[in-house]
């Protein structure tokens, strides 16, 4: 997995074992993090203890159970090196969180301008699917493949990760209102859920309407969120009342989303699409005098031959990271019609950083629901039985 994110003033790029922090304008490297080889040596405890108190964790699917049995056996044979799953910077820019697979862990680094210091290594129950800091940077939330959401205290490393709530399928995105009162999550079962915080046992509501996985969320203002889904739609919601405001067809299933402000009451959204080449769609979002959001399609960006995996805006530039021949590539677009100041040579320097890393694209087709029919056969047999009886 790769991560591409912007946290003023740094562009953060992560892949496999390494995180680099660069100046987005000249791509000069400020600092980097290289993952330690053996997290157990740094005090990581085996993660199974973590899940014990909560059987909710047991929500994971059967085959995962099998997998964990297998990986437990493997652990005795050889220690797999950790590999980066997700990276986030805290809103106050002082912490960097990294989740890893292989040796499943949550690492917290303290960020200084020129270096990052590892401050804690904590167990992770299952591969993470999203990580998000609280608006006050004091808490890190980690959701996993089974839909569980764990809270990691960033001020007290000793505190056990705490299970806050659970979905019944993988959670693809999580956003937290700036006032900390609501956590909004979306999952593979077409749902957007609004959970109260800190009373996370109390579900505030749902935003329902999507008909496939909901892959990404973002706030437009304090009452409105935007979502994109595998059902090829983008929707706006009054999330506190669970009301759909607007829906717009996307050219293809939506996978990721990022926003930038382009003026007062004006935003631009970039949506990563599940289709080759024409894989990024740009939309203009405008809030009218009557507080209604209007959505307009602006343009489609073509990135032929690249499997794009992450996108982010930095001012007027859109950065996209992806895979060409199992290797990392970075592309920069100016979305405002002017020249991008980022030179191709600088981009090559960044790509060099990950030259030796092999990166296989994720099979996104597995996100879609698998439908199988266990009813027709039964009804057919029933029909025959009844017909026979009537003869």
């Amino acid at each position, binding site marked *: 997995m790769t991560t591409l994110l912007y946290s003023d003033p740094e562009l953060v790029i992560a892949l496999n074992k390494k995180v680099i922090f660069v100046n987005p304008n000249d791509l000069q490297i400020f600092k980097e993090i290289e993952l330690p080889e053996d997290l157990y040596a740094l005090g990581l405890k085996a993660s199974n203890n973590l899940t014990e108190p*909560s*059987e*909710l964790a*047991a*929500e*994971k*699917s*059967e085959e995962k*159970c099998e997998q964990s049995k297998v990986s437990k056996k493997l652990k005795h044979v050889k220690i797999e090196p950790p590999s980066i799953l997700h990276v986030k910077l805290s809103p106050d820019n002082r912490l960097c969180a990294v989740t890893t697979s292989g040796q499943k862990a949550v690492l917290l680094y303290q960020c200084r301008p020129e270096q990052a210091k590892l401050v804690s290594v904590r167990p992770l129950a299952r591969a993470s699917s999203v990580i998000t800091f609280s608006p006050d940077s004091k808490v890190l939330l980690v959701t996993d493949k089974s*839909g*569980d959401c764990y809270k990691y205290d960033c001020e007290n490393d000793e505190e056990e990760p705490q*299970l806050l*709530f*659970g*979905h*019944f*399928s993988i959670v693809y995105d999580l956003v937290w209102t700036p006032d900390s009162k609501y956590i909004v999550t979306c999952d593979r*079962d*077409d*749902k957007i859920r609004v959970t109260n915080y800190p*009373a996370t*046992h*109390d*579900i505030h*509501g*749902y935003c*329902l*309407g*999507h*008909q496939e996985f909901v892959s990404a969320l973002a706030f437009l203002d304090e009452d409105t969120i935007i979502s994109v889904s595998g059902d090829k739609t983008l929707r706006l919601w009054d999330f506190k009342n669970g009301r759909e405001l607007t829906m717009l067809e996307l050219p293809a299933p939506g996978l990721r989303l990022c926003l930038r402000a382009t003026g007062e009451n004006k935003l631009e959204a970039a949506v990563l699409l599940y289709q080759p080449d024409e894989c990024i769609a740009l939309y203009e979002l405008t809030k009218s005098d009557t507080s209604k959001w209007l959505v307009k399609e602006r343009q489609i960006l073509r990135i032929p031959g690249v499997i794009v995996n992450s996108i982010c805006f930095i001012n007027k530039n859109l950065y996209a990271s992806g895979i060409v021949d199992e290797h990392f590539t970075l592309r920069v677009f100016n979305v405002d019609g002017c020249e991008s100041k980022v030179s191709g040579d600088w981009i090559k320097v960044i790509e060099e950083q990950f030259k030796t890393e092999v990166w296989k694209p994720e099979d996104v087709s597995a996100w879609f*629901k*698998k*439908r*199988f*029919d*266990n*009813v027709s056969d*039964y*009804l057919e047999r*029933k*029909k025959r*039985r*009844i017909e026979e009886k*009537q003869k």
Partner: protein
Amino acid sequence: MVQEPCSISLPQKRYYRQRAHSNPIADHCFDYPAHPDNVNWQEFYPNITPDQHVEFADIGCGYGGFLVTLGEMFPDRLAIGLEIRVKVSDYVMDRIKALRTLHQGKYNNIACLRTNAMKYLPNYFRKAQLDKMFFLYPDPHFKRAKHKWRIINQALLSEYAYVLRKGGLVYTMTDVEDLHNWIVQHMEKHPLYERLTDEEEKTDPITPKLYHSSEEGTKVVRNKGDHFLAIFRRI
């Protein structure tokens, strides 16, 4: 839908037998509404009025014995049985159709829905819509590895609390003591439920009806000591 010719008698269970445990987590071919607004309740309750909505849900209703009782006890209120197994839910649907034909004007307040209650409750019911939920003789899933299939756990309890109105009741009954302890432990830990007092549990008019399961083979009413009842209030 294929229907048993209904001029005749009640459907026979032998045609509707099915392996006891479906995996509630795997994908199924459920057609479910994207939003409760999209449900046409008229298809379930032919006489439903615009201000009426489902208030009772029997989760994992099996062959529907209790659902029928519920319909008789509360003729003015709508009850739904949720059942994941194809044949079993089809049996209940046919049973209700037959009952409606045999007893004109009755049993129009009960219906059965084939769905996975662990996943799709918010697709059918609004926040605070339900007044009573029943978990009667749920599959015990004894093996630890299968505890995840249990119909009661922390995350599911939050979802049930969402569809239940404040003051609404959750009825649980099992003949497996282990499962009973599990249920009580989880319900009591959850901040949105409190257990009724012994006295309240005893005097609830529904209580006496909970002592027999509609699953085959367990029809026989055993002595009360083998049954574990617990009722909780949504707070």
